[in-house]
Structures are given as structure tokens and as C-alpha cells.
């Protein structure tokens, strides 16, 4: 039997790696992939706690997270294609149209 904190530890490690990708990488595509990694580490936590406390709501929330992630990726990649067509760049620090 695998103890609960092993799963949480795996979630923590994947979350930190994904956050490093979001904060440090320069390529927008890799930033989006790291975002997927973050959401997956959260899913591991949801399902681990759902198993531990014998509650289906963990799995149901994970299903919703996956559905919303699919929508987010579709919109983000549409924006990315429009961005590359208009500004022909893939670097996060070149996208300053909103003066952020």
C-alpha cells in the first residue's frame, strides 16, 4: 500500500517543476506545456485525496479540470497561431501589446 504522502510529494515535485517552466522559459509553447504539468500535479492530488477519504468528488473534479484544460489549450493555441501570424514571434518577452 502506497502511503498518501508519497502521492502528495509527487504532486509537489511536479508542481515546482511546472512552475519553473512557466516562470523561466522563454518559448510560449513550452510555457503552455508547463501549465499542463501544473494542472496534472493538481489532478494527482485530487485523486489521491479522493481515494484516501473514499469520496468520488476528487475524481469528478479531476474530470472537470481535464475538460477545462482542453478548452484552455484550444483557445491558447488559437491565440498563439494568430500571434505568430501577426507578430512572428514565439518569445514571451516580445509580447508586450498590453503593456504588461
Amino acid at each position, binding site marked *: 500500500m502506497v502511503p498518501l504522502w508519497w502521492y502528495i510529494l509527487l504532486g509537489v515535485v511536479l508542481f515546482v517543476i511546472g512552475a519553473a517552466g512557466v516562470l523561466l522559459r522563454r518559448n510560449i509553447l513550452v510555457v503552455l506545456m508547463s501549465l499542463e504539468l501544473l494542472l496534472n500535479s493538481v489532478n494527482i492530488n485530487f485523486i489521491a485525496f479522493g481515494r*484516501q477519504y473514499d469520496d468520488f468528488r476528487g475524481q*469528478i473534479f479531476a474530470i*472537470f479540470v481535464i475538460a477545462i484544460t482542453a478548452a484552455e489549450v484550444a483557445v491558447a493555441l488559437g491565440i498563439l497561431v494568430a500571434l505568430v501570424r501577426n507578430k512572428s514571434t514565439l518569445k514571451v518577452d516580445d509580447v508586450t501589446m498590453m503593456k504588461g
Partner: protein
Amino acid sequence: MDQGFFLLFATVAVVAALMVVVARNPVHSALALMACFLQISAIFIMLGAPLLAVIQIFVYVGAIMVLFLFVIMMIDVREAVLQRFLPGGNLPTLVLLVLLGIEMLVLVLRSDRFSVTEPVATRGGDAIRQLSTTLFADYLLPFEAASVILLAALVGAIVLARKESG
């Protein structure tokens, strides 16, 4: 036995996740992410959620990664390959990440709430049937909202990626 399999899957998942962040070529990042998702779906099976494991493979490995690879093929990624990380000023970010990791580790390891080994209770019977009953009875409204969000995202992606006609 279980613990050995968990360690195997977790190690491969962490190594693949590191590859995602470190790889120079976005195609390599995408393939490493695919490997990581496969390990995570194996971990879902170990957690007694086979439906989630199948959804993970269908949606992430089957749909999202193919979408990523399509976009990588559509656009020219070669000019972005030269510089991997944001130039300069990485130290505060690294300190922030290390602090985040240490905080979460301390929180998990020093709390006795997470150290219980056995599940609180085990419910027998048909798990997927009970899951779908809960999903379609108690969570029907969020389910419909999620489907409307998916439809809106579909239309939005088409509108965003369309070539300007005039």
C-alpha cells in the same frame, strides 16, 4: 510491490517533467510531456481510478499533445530555439521556486494528517457506476456548464485562428 511500481512511475514522470523544462527543442518538450502523462495515467490506475487513466490518455496524449505537435509543425520554431531561458534576473525566480518547494514539503512532511497509510474507508462495488451516477445526478449543472465552455472554446479557437478576411 505497489511501492516499487509507484517509485518507478514517479521517477520516470519527474525525469520526463524535467526534460520538458530543460529541452532545447519544443518537439522534444512535447514528447517528454507525453511520456510524463503516460506515467501519470499509470499512477491514476494505482490510485484506483481507471476511468481517469483512460480519460487522461485520450484527452492529454491523444488530443492535446497532437494539437501541440500540429501547432509546432505549423509555425517555425527554429528561431526561438537559440535562447532557452529568460535572460538575466533568474535569481529571484529561482529563490521563489525553492521557497515554494520547501514550504510545501514542510507542510506535507510535518503534518500528521498525511501520514496515515490505510484509507479511511473502502467502498466496494461498481466504482465507475457510482462515479457516473454522482457525476450525472449531483453534478449535472457543472457538467452542462463544462460542455458549454467547450463549445465556446471551439468557436473561439476557430475565430482566433482564422485568417483576417477584410
